[in-house]
């Protein structure tokens, strides 16, 4: 080693020491981690982006796929869930999911979001205000609940939906979020879920499937024309989902750093690949590339890359996208018809299947270098980097989630059915939910 190199290194070490010293001193001075304005800027923007995914994103994506007489009722579901979940999250959801507690559930220190001031931070997001972290996570809870509506479109009572979602948020979403992200046992077991493949998509997809089965098929299913009334709305919805998903995935880095950048890059690549995969599959099988197909494929890609973003590289993303596009196409067309359930807008076919594909392939393509941190100095490798056990770990995460959400959702649906009745009456289903439930129509 030459003297120059040596000096260079030495200078590096010394220089490296200066900021450490300053930072250390600052930490002493303030007795808490400093808020980074760059990180905060990105997380404020991300929160806006994720909110936009539900309203108007999911509202339009779903609203365009139903018959005209149900379009207002469908967008109403997303909008009302946004409001309801926001309040419940503020009251009790956030504290149970994201404050210190047991491996099973969080604590009660933030009931009604009390105790927050302008400088509070959470240990889960040390460089941004805790207010931002709490609202950012709120938008995840919102969209998860809104996604379920796709499975029950055209036939569920509005009051029953609100009651079900209230229970479901607290009893299903909150615990699972805690298990994976809030210091719970799944996170501790090494389950990788960067932005919510398990917590959000498998969870919502399976709950939707159960709800579709409990509610039964739509009147006229396979007999009458139930074609989407205006796919332009759905295209707008899918587009805003895509755009907003940058906040979802890159925002899950909780910083405006290289990991956020990588998460955004793989999101874009997987989404595009899945959309093309669905489009070309359909083009081959059904002779025409449909608009509903390509946007469904895009959403499938977004779903599948969600757990993997932040862990995989562009090449892995390309494969994840292609696989998700083909499998979700198959699930939403062949599998659904073969099994005969009526998941109206394919909440399970896209989010359930897409989430499972993504969660598994995260275990395959994870790049250890991307998840290096103080706590985990070597990062978590996937199968391709020689760690086949990660696939197993992912399977455990999937399994626990599927069983828990499946069973509890079923129980909750039965309870709500007993209290209010889940399904609208025949006249309402025939004349449209818009007029009967909300007293309004699109003219």
């Amino acid at each position, binding site marked *: 080693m030459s003297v120059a190199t040596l000096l260079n290194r030495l200078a590096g070490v010394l220089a490296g020491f200066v900021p450490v010293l300053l930072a250390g001193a600052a930490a002493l001075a303030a007795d808490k981690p400093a808020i980074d304005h760059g990180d905060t800027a990105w997380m404020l923007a991300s929160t806006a982006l994720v909110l936009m995914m539900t309203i108007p994103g999911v509202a339009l994506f779903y609203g365009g796929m139903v018959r005209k*007489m149900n379009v207002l009722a469908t967008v109403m579901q997303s909008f009302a869930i946004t409001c309801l979940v926001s309040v419940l999250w503020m009251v009790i959801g956030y504290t149970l999911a994201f404050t210190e507690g047991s491996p099973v559930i969080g604590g009660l220190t933030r009931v009604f979001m009390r105790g927050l001031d302008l400088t509070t931070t959470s240990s889960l997001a040390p460089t941004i205000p805790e207010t931002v972290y709490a609202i950012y996570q709120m938008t995840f809870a919102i969209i998860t609940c809104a996604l379920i509506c796709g499975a029950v479109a055209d036939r569920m009572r509005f009051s029953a939906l609100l009651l079900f979602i209230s229970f479901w948020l607290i009893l299903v979403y909150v615990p699972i979020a805690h298990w994976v992200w809030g210091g719970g046992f799944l996170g501790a077991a090494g389950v990788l879920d960067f932005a919510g493949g398990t917590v959000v998509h498998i969870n919502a997809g399976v709950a939707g499937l159960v709800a579709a089965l409990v509610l039964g098929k739509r009147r*006229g299913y396979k*007999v*009458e*024309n139930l074609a989407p009334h205006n796919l332009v709305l759905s295209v707008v919805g899918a587009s805003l989902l895509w755009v907003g998903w940058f906040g979802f995935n890159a925002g899950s880095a909780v910083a405006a750093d290289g990991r956020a950048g990588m998460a955004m890059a793989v999101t874009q690549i997987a989404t595009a690949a899945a959309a093309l995969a669905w489009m070309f599959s359909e083009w081959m099988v059904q002779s025409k590339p449909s608009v509903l197909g390509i946007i469904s494929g895009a959403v499938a890609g977004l779903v599948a890359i969600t757990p993997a973003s932040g862990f995989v590289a562009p090449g892995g993303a390309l494969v994840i996208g292609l696989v998700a596009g083909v499998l979700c196409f198959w699930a939403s067309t062949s599998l659904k018809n073969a099994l005969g359930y009526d998941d109206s807008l394919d909440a399970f076919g896209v989010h359930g299947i897409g989430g499972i594909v993504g969660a598994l392939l995260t275990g395959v393509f994870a790049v250890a270098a991307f998840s290096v941190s103080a706590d985990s100095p070597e990062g978590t490798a996937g199968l391709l980097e020689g760690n086949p056990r990660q696939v197993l770990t992912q399977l455990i995460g999937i399994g626990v989630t599927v069983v828990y959400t499946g069973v509890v959702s079923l129980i909750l649906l039965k309870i709500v059915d007993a209290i209010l009745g889940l399904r609208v009456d025949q*006249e309402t289903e*025939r*004349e449209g939910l818009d*007029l*009967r439930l909300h*007293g*309004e*129509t699109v003219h």
Partner: protein
Amino acid sequence: MKMIMAIIKPFKLDEVREALTTLGIQGLTVSEVKGFGRQKGQTEIYRGAEYSVSFLPKVKIEVVVTDDLAESVIEGIQKAANTGRIGDGKIFMIDISAAVRIRTGETNADAL
């Protein structure tokens, strides 16, 4: 020839079309209409302004047939469109004194 004009509930359209197809009818024309009748609509209230929605969505079918078919067409529609509930709709019969197929210039029965 007769034109049978039927006002039916929208979700019955596919059933009616099939019923007519089994009778050998090869063409018909459909429009979206709004019906006012014994079946009362809901009240829509927008920010305190009430509008009684006296008009409900219906579908109008117009089908021109030779005189001999008219009776069975009316019967077919009546059966297929019936739900037994108020608002099921009406069927009217109108005389048609000429018919032309635009593509070929064929007229009357040949045109249908």
